[in-house]
C-alpha cells in the first residue's frame, strides 16, 4: 500500500480558477477553518492572497490549548509546585499563559512538569514509579479523546492508585452551533477538521445542513484545503448546503465506532467554558461515575475557576472569527510569540501565532 500525494500545484491552480469563477457571482463569502492545523497550513501556503477578494478565510476556535480555561493552567501549576504531584501534559500546553503563570515558568521555578506525547506514556510512567503521584492534564478535541479514554481504562484495569486526570476536553459540533447562531460573525461555510471527523464521522454535523451552512471535511495537504474551499464555494454559488466529505481516505461517514463506543463508556457530555468565548452547552466531557476514582479534581479537592482574559487581549473575538488577529491592538506590538499576552499567540496553532509567522 502507498500514500497518495495531494500536493499537485497544477490541479490546485485550476481549482483556484474554479473558485474564482464560482465566487464571481456571489456576495461576500466567509469561510471558517475550524482546525488549528488548517490555520497553520493556510498561512504557510499563503492561500489567503490567492483567493478572490470576496472570499474570506477566518480562523475558528480550533486550537484546543487556546480554548482551555486559564484556571486549568493555574490549577496545574499549583499541583506541580510543592504538592509532590508530577503534572504531565502535552508540549503545546506548557507555554500557554494561565492567569498568573504558565507551566513553563512553573517548571523553571522547580515545579514537577513532565511533557509527554501520549497519555499512555503518562500511564506507563505512573506504573513504573508507584511511589510518585501523577496527574495528566487532558486537553484536546474529539481527536484526542479516545487516547485519553484508553489511558483512563488502562489506569483502572492496572489499578494504578497514583494516576489521575484533569479532563478539559472540548467538542467541536456544539461550538460550531454556537458560532453560527451569532449572526454578527456571519459565517457562510465551514472547513471541518479532518481528524476530529475521523472519530465522529459526518452525522454530528447534520445540523449544519438544516441551518443552510455548507461544510467540507478536509484533509491537511495543499490540494485538500483548496479542494475543500472549492467544494463550499461551489455549493454556496449553487445555493446548496450539506456536509461533503473530501477526506474519505481517513474519514468514514460513520466515524470510528470503536472509538465512539469507548468515549461513551468513559465520558458523559457536560456544559463547558471555551476560554474567550464563554459557556457552550454540552461542549465538554466529564468522567462517568464508574471512573470517578481517577478524577484528579475529586482526589485533590480541586475546583477550577474561570478568570477574565488577560487585559487588552482580543483572543475571544479572534477565536470566534469576529476579527482577524492583526486587528487586535496588542498584535505584534506588546504581544509577540516571545512575549505572548494571550493564548492564541503562544500555541503553535493559535491564530495569532500563525498570522505573526506567515501573514504580517
Amino acid at each position, binding site marked *: *500500500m502507498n500514500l497518495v500525494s495531494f500536493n499537485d500545484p497544477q490541479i490546485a491552480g485550476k481549482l483556484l480558477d474554479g473558485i474564482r469563477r464560482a465566487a464571481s457571482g456571489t456576495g461576500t463569502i466567509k469561510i471558517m477553518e475550524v482546525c488549528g492545523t488548517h490555520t497553520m497550513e493556510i498561512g504557510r501556503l499563503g492561500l489567503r492572497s490567492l483567493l478572490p477578494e470576496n472570499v474570506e478565510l477566518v480562523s475558528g476556535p480550533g486550537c484546543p490549548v487556546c480554548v482551555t480555561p486559564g484556571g486549568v493552567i493555574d490549577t496545574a501549576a499549583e499541583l506541580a509546585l510543592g504538592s509532590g504531584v508530577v503534572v504531565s501534559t502535552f508540549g503545546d500546553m506548557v507555554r500557554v499563559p494561565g492567569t498568573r503563570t504558565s507551566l513553563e515558568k512553573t517548571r523553571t521555578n522547580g515545579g514537577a512538569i513532565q511533557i509527554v*506525547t501520549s497519555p499512555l506514556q503518562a500511564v506507563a510512567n505512573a506504573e513504573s514509579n508507584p511511589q510518585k503521584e501523577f496527574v495528566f492534564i487532558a486537553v484536546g478535541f474529539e*481527536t484526542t479523546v*479516545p487516547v485519553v479514554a*484508553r489511558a483512563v481504562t488502562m489506569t483502572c484495569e492496572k489499578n494504578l492508585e497514583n494516576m489521575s486526570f484533569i479532563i478539559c476536553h472540548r467538542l467541536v459540533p456544539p461550538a460550531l452551533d454556537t458560532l453560527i447562531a451569532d449572526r454578527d460573525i456571519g459565517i457562510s461555510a465551514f472547513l471541518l477538521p479532518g481528524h476530529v471527523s475521523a472519530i465522529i464521522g459526518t452525522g454530528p454535523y447534520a445540523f449544519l445542513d438544516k441551518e443552510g451552512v455548507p461544510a467540507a471535511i478536509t484533509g491537511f495537504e495543499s*490540494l485538500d484545503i483548496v479542494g475543500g474551499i472549492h467544494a463550499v464555494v461551489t455549493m454556496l454559488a449553487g445555493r446548496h448546503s450539506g456536509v461533503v466529505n473530501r477526506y474519505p*481516505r481517513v474519514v468514514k461517514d460513520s466515524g*470510528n465506532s470503536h472509538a465512539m463506543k469507548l468515549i461513551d463508556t468513559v465520558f458523559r457530555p457536560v456544559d463547558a467554558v471555551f476560554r474567550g468565548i464563554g459557556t457552550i452547552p454540552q461542549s465538554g466531557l466529564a468522567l462517568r461515575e464508574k471512573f470517578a476514582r481517577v478524577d484528579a479534581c475529586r482526589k485533590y479537592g480541586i475546583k477550577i475557576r474561570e478568570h477574565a482574559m488577560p487585559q487588552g487581549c482580543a483572543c475571544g473575538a479572534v477565536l470566534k472569527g469576529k476579527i482577524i488577529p492583526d486587528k487586535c491592538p496588542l498584535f505584534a506590538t506588546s504581544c509577540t510569540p516571545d512575549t505572548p499576552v494571550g493564548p492564541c499567540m503562544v500555541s503553535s496553532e493559535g491564530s495569532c501565532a500563525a498570522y505573526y509567522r506567515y501573514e504580517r
Partner: protein
Amino acid sequence: MCLAVPAKIISIEGTTAKCDMSGNTTVADISMVPDAEIGDYVIIHAGLALQKYDEQEALETLALFKELADKPDGP
C-alpha cells in the same frame, strides 16, 4: 494539536503495533482499528491509531479533484 500522521505497521503484538513513520520507528496502540494488519497505513495521533488509511478512497478523491479542476465552464 489534532495533528495526526500516517505510519506503516511493521509488526503487531496484542493491541500494540510497531510502525514506520517516514523512516522513524514508533509504537502505537491499535485497539481502535482492530482489523489493521501488517503493511497497512494507520493515522496516528498521540500514540493511538485513529483510523486506517484507505488508498482506494485516496485515489478516488484525487480523481475527483482532477475532474473538478478540468471542468472548463462549470464551477
